[in-house]
């Protein structure tokens, strides 16, 4: 017979969360030093799905690299492609037709909604509620169908080209998008009643994981993580690019600095994206989707170029160092979740493990995007 196990009052143990864990949304590992249910210290281990996209960028020509961008963040892929095409267009001085930019913005916003919907479902599932995921996926399905008809794929889009688009949108798409907007608005009311107003849900998240403005700044957080901490920062507004200055939309900012604030920011963003799509469809100009004259071979002049865009997960940046040849000399991809995830270790100290997992959910992690 074994002797009874007794924990000493100040004894800690190491808990290994992951690499495969349902709450980490991918292959992420967190080593946690626990004291009972409280986290004393934690160390995040990433790199399990590292694919070295940046080296591929140096070996492939500019058009060949287009498809890599959508393999980084599989939920909001179009935003990443947008950043890449914008920086190459800026560097090589390619003019983009107005219609193409409008369609890009509409597509990126649709993709942002689908990404937020998936996050919404998965986040509530992390907290123990399964059914909202099914509702969210049902709405998301409409977006994926729409995007599939135009871009040819459901997740890993390769839709943007330097100077324009691969395929023009047709009346079917416009009809479907117009039908989708009221549907999504109705669903938002449903989610509000089902989840946001739920007392268990609110009690769980209110005051969970306080993130100060200063922490956000030191770690370079963006997206809802920063906006939930009272920082009014959205690249679409702060450094306007593409046709975003022509749209009338708001940036939701909450000052509570807790997980509920981050949740509220994302839910409000869905409505703002719907507004952009609505205006985009109304204002959509006629014309070509590719420029009349475009260099056959893309060779940006030597120099370095930077472009930031607001993706579903935050400020994504591409730094392109060109030496004037047909492949980039260096292509740095600054992924937003990398910075957002980094502050987890510092913030989760002293939290209970289930609160820390709720906090992790509120960061909206997509691991392939951290690892690149």
């Amino acid at each position, binding site marked *: 017979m074994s002797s009874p196990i007794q924990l000493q009052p100040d004894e800690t143990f190491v808990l290994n969360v992951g690499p495969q864990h349902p709450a980490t949304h991918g292959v992420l590992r967190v080593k946690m030093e626990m004291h009972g249910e409280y986290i004393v210290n934690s160390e995040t281990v990433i790199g399990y799905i590292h694919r070295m996209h940046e080296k591929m960028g140096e070996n492939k020509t500019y058009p060949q690299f287009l498809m890599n961008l959508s393999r980084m963040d599989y939920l909001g892929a179009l935003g990443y492609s947008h950043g890449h095409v914008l920086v190459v267009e800026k560097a090589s001085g390619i003019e983009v037709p107005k219609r193409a930019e409008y369609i890009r913005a509409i597509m990126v916003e649709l993709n942002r909604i689908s990404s937020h919907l998936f996050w919404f479902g998965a986040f509530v599932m992390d907290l123990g509620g399964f059914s909202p995921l099914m509702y969210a996926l049902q709405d998301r399905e409409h977006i994926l169908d729409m995007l599939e008809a135009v871009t040819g794929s459901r997740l890993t889009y390769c839709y943007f080209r330097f100077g324009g688009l691969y395929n023009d949108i047709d009346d079917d798409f416009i009809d479907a998008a117009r039908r989708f907007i009221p549907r999504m608005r109705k669903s938002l009311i449903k989610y509000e009643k089902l989840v946001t107003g739920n007392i268990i849900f609110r009690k769980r998240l209110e005051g969970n994981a306080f993130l100060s403005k200063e922490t956000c700044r030191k770690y*370079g957080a963006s997206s809802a993580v920063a906006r939930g901490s009272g920082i009014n920062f959205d690249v679409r507004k702060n450094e306007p690019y593409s046709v975003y200055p022509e749209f009338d939309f708001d940036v939701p900012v909450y000052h509570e600095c807790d997980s509920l604030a981050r949740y509220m920011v994302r839910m409000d963003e869905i409505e703002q994206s719907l507004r952009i799509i609505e205006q985009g469809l109304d204002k959509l100009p006629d014309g070509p989707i590719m420029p009349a004259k475009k260099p056959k071979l893309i060779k940006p*002049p030597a120099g370095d170029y930077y472009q930031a865009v607001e993706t579903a997960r935050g400020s994504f940046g591409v730094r392109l*160092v060109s030496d004037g040849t047909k492949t980039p000399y*260096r292509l740095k991809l600054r992924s937003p979740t990398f910075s957002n995830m980094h502050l987890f270790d510092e913030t989760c100290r002293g939290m209970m493990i289930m609160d820390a997992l709720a906090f992790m959910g509120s960061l909206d992690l997509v691991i392939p995007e951290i690892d*690149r």
Partner: protein
Amino acid sequence: MIIEKTKLAFQNMFPTPESELSVSEEVTEEAEKTETDKKAKPEKTPRLDGVIECDYAVHGYHLDVQVDAEQLLVAVNVVDQEEFFIESITGVDWIKEGQIEIVYDFSRYDFDTCRVVIRTRVDRKNPVVPTITGIYAGANWHERETHDFFGIKFDGHPHLIPLLLPEDADFHPLLKDFKA
């Protein structure tokens, strides 16, 4: 305007005669850059330390600062004082010149936009720069990533082990002479 303010703070870092010189020089250099002239002859003379105001529409950032590795912490302190947030850290391997460039990107949570690039060049054979984790805690992972890819040693880094590469990795894939 934050751009002028930050630029002034950077200029104070460099001795006065040189900073005046680099200011007057940068105008011509800037004009050169925008024209196609630069394509024909790549910069042969190494760039002097100093601050250059760049054309945002072309390059996507406002201030470009080149410093010595010794002066790096001073420069990073300047951006910290002006409440910049850290965007990323990366390297570029200039194999022909035998140097590695370390590039720090900073930006601001503000509508008074200012993007700052701080760059420093070190010898390719012995790449060592001081860590900035003491100023920006978020530099930790960025520096580990740069260490993975380029083998740059960040002096004083608390935990410089592979981040994205396997734990026993002894190769640096983004060096130009890396063979898989």
